[in-house]
């Protein structure tokens, strides 16, 4: 279980989820069962099968390069409480 917790902690880091320890532990327990179901695929012999990334047969769906009307900046910024001078503010990144 400790190993599972460590691994979920690693995956949560990749997924940018800052989980509390208690939540990490309960999610690790859930994930053990879920990954067990996914593991049922591992023994299937699919070496000769090609992968289908997307079911759509569409390739290079082209259209005329006509300029459209962009969204109004104010409207876009209005969804953030941290808009500033037509930009989004974030905590300082570089010391």
């Amino acid at each position, binding site marked *: 279980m400790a190993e599972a917790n460590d691994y979920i902690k690693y*995956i949560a880091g990749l997924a*940018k989820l800052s989980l509390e320890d208690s939540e990490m532990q309960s*999610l690790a327990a859930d994930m053990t*069962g879920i990954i067990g179901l996914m593991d049922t*695929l591992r023994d299937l012999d699919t070496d000769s099968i090609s992968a289908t990334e997307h079911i759509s047969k569409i390739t290079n769906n082209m259209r005329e390069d006509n300029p459209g009307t962009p969204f109004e900046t104010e409207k876009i910024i209005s969804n953030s409480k941290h808009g500033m001078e037509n930009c989004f503010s974030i905590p300082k990144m570089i010391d």
Partner: protein
Amino acid sequence: MDTTKLTIKEARSLLDSRKISVTELTRTYLDRIKTYDDKIDSYLSVCGESALEQASEAQKLIDSGKGEMLCGIPLSIKDNICIEGTPTTCASKMLENFVPPYTATAVNKLRAQNSVILGKVNLDEFAMGGSTENSAFKKTKNPFDTTRVPGGSSGGSAASVSASLALGSLGSDTGGSVRQPAAFCGVVGLKPTYGLVSRYGLVAFASSLDQIGPIGKTVEDCAIILDGICGQDPKDGTSLSYEAGASYASAVSGGIKDYKIGLPKEYLTEGLNSEVRNALYKSIETLERLGAKVEEFSMPSLKHAVPAYYLMSSAEASSNLSRYDGVKYGYRAENCRSFNELIGRSRAEGFGREVKRRILLGTYALASGYYDAYYKKALKLRTLISQGFDEAFSKYDVVLHPTTPETAFKLGQNTDDPLSMYLADIYTVSANIAGLPSISLPCGYDANGLPIGLSFTGKPLGEREILRAAATFEADFAPEFRVPVL
């Protein structure tokens, strides 16, 4: 007026013959929402004022003889489909205050026909779940039994139609999210062929699987809504270019004499509840009496559809949901001292538990060292499942199967058991994996009076075949059809 059995087609006739005005019809639904939605909790937001304004505009068109099929028809919209200026929350704390700057193409098409939008309805957070219990805001109840779930993730859509709190609804279906709640709530749900309806403005969950679909009281109502929302869209590069042909609504007649229908043996598993199994066999007898030939066939890859689906959809979800970082829109954690803390805490505090599970699973499946064993393996299963259906449709006009292994379960019954929730998607996910159209409609009721769903799945762009099969069955089943008593 009694709306409990009213269909879009009947409402059209009442509106066109001036037996009722659009405002009267809209007010009837708004009044019902006010009276009954406290019991059902299907709506997240009701747009009463704008609905009445839209009703007034629609009436002018009808009066001038310019009203189209959906003109003045009151509909609800799943709250992961954007409407400019109207909150679109995805039932998530993450988007609790999000107001989209644009409208989904499917909704624009409905509005172009002057449909009336009654409001936005509940769902599992980001459409992840099968009970609508994963909503951050409320738990929708099944109109047939309010101690039970309506299914999900389009539980608000299905419950609102079942309880006659809307004449029809738009849902979204990534692994059964239109069809499963339709089955649980005793209404009809249609997942169109991938690409038939634009995904522009549908908040992305798993982009290669997501598809907007209609929920209605009847097969014909679903066909009418589909006619209103389908078509290629330059704003969605995966939307299909196809020969339009006759309307989908016109495809419901003609019967199923000489139809060849296939039933996958792999779906007749131990997990299939006996009452659902009996309803399926009774339905087969009906279909044969109506002139179809039904036979079992084997498609071994279907046994692996659930893990393949969860790997693919979670991998895509983990990528799609990486956009929620607390910067441009969505929930933002307070008092963060660094950019990384802002992202990590905003996501941890803004997403609910099921969404976190899917993000973790998807990140795991895509992680270095696991990609081939999980994600790529799932993509190979997609090839096998698609090939299996290609072979099936070389022999059969449509494929028949139950929609769900069981009827609606009790609220809270499976909340702590995500694995059993995932396994219950066995009959619906394969249509999304292969991009096929599939429709669920009522075919019976269990001993508790809960609806049982029957599904027809078709070949790509085979909507007409499944609509015709479903409508023919529905006409025969009509004397047994029930509406919930609220």
